[in-house]
């Protein structure tokens, strides 16, 4: 099983290494630029303007900035957890017939893929940690724990996406990993919509989305990601378990095909 995980890392290194180095460099540069801009540059001026002219509170401004940071923090995860690169590489090589002949059971083969994904996320977390430390040390945007909470939440979301992609790619076939990713996104969107169905209905009932209600939604989202990351972590573990069981079941049913 360890050999399969090593092979997955080799695939990731081969497929994504150049992009990964670019992303790390870009993330660090963006973080530094962000730090400078929020202290002395344009972001600082815009935020001051928003508070003076538009009636935004300092909390609103912090949340808007955090919202942007979330996008930066998502980049390393999006890259290292692009499990499609590994699935497609296996598919292209016809590796499934090699792995099927190895002294490994089918559930162990699936587990190896899930463990690989979990280990990939550690690389993403390491990159994000650099950014978190930089932002916590040199800006007043948010404390270390808040940023760490966001990082854990983002890692959990991306892991959920990857686990779903693995399950759907077993279901649809490894050649249709693009569709598997699309289905994973749709599943996550459906879950988010279902969880927030009350708020969505109330927005539709009032018939308009005011700047205040938008800011409230944004603030609550950022607060949720930073302060309630344990919920995302638990959700990720539950999805991981369900996806593992589902994938093993699908793999057993499609034995000989995948």
């Amino acid at each position, binding site marked *: 099983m360890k*050999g399969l995980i090593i092979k997955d890392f080799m695939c990731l290194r081969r497929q994504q290494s150049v992009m990964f180095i670019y992303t790390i460099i870009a993330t660090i540069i963006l973080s530094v630029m962000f730090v400078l801009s929020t202290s002395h540059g344009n972001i600082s001026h815009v935020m001051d303007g928003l508070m003076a002219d538009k009636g935004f509170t300092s909390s609103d401004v912090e949340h808007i900035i955090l919202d942007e940071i979330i996008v930066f923090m998502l980049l390393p995860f999006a890259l290292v957890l692009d499990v499609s690169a590994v699935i497609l590489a296996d598919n292209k090589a016809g590796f499934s*017939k090699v792995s099927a002949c190895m002294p490994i059971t089918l559930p162990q083969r699936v587990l190896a893929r899930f463990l690989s994904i979990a280990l990939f996320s550690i690389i993403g977390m390491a990159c994000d940690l650099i950014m978190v430390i930089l932002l916590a040390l040199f800006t007043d945007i948010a404390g270390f724990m808040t940023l760490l909470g966001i990082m854990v939440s983002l890692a959990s979301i991306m892991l959920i996406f990857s686990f779903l992609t693995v399950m759907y790619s077993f279901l649809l076939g490894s050649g249709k990993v693009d569709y598997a990713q699309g289905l994973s996104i749709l599943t996550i969107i459906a879950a988010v919509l279902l969880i927030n169905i009350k708020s969505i209905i109330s927005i539709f009932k009032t018939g308009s989305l005011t700047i205040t209600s938008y800011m409230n939604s944004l603030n609550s989202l950022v607060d949720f990601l930073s302060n309630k990351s344990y919920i995302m972590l638990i959700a990720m573990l539950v999805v991981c378990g369900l996806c593992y069981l589902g994938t093993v079941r699908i793999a057993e049913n499609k034995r000989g095909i995948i």
Partner: protein
Amino acid sequence: MNVVEIKGITKDYGDFKLDNVSFSIPEGSVCGFIGQNGAGKTTTIKAILDIIKVDSGEVFVFGKDVAKEGAAIREDIGVVFDEMGFHEFMTGKDINIMMKNIYKNWNEEVFFDYLKKFSLPSRKPCGNFSRGMRMKLQIAVALSHDAKLLIMDEPTSGLDPIVRNEMLQIFREYVVEEDHTMLLSSHITGDLEKLADEVVFINKGRVLLAGNKDEILEKHGILKCRKDDLKKISEALIVNYDIEAYGVSVLVSDRDACGKLYPDMVIEPANLEEIMLYYVR
């Protein structure tokens, strides 16, 4: 002792059915698995390796049920496919790192010795290898974990005669060890005739012939006669016949019996290819 024992396996894919396949491979022998493309050779191999779930029947390897102990059994099986399944960027060194973390008996010294013996560079990505080199790489992997059973699915197809001969020599060296057994699937019967002790002939998912190669070759013969004489030959002895311009060639299933019954007719020995062609015709 039989290393492989297949008892009445059936697998129905709808458009193709592996139908009640049974045969066994004794320890220390080379079993040639012959059949046309799509005859069911690969499906049978998949059943032996427990890659597919059979609808009915049982497969025992080293006396163990593959349905229950498939993973443990595969520890002692080396497999070579017609196409290399390794990622093209992988080097011999990469494959060694992966395999030593998979097989308990992986011997990296043996692996690198094989790479050297086969003149395969260990630092070059295997995607740059020729077809012959790719096959040799697979064989090196299959032989580096002390496999007692080597299963090869069309390993020589698409190779030039020189590389094919080299590979046959490697297989001969492998079976020198008494406890080494080989299942060699191929539609190139010439290779099997040189190497095999046992032969299993499969067609449309059914085993038509199984047994000792020499006995099969001794038993079968091609009887040459005139068209009018065909009616005289017992139908029980005729496998199939081929009407030619100057007479009829008949594959008979008992050469000795034919010789006694029809002493005036010419009976020539048949090779595996001819036997296969007459059976499937």
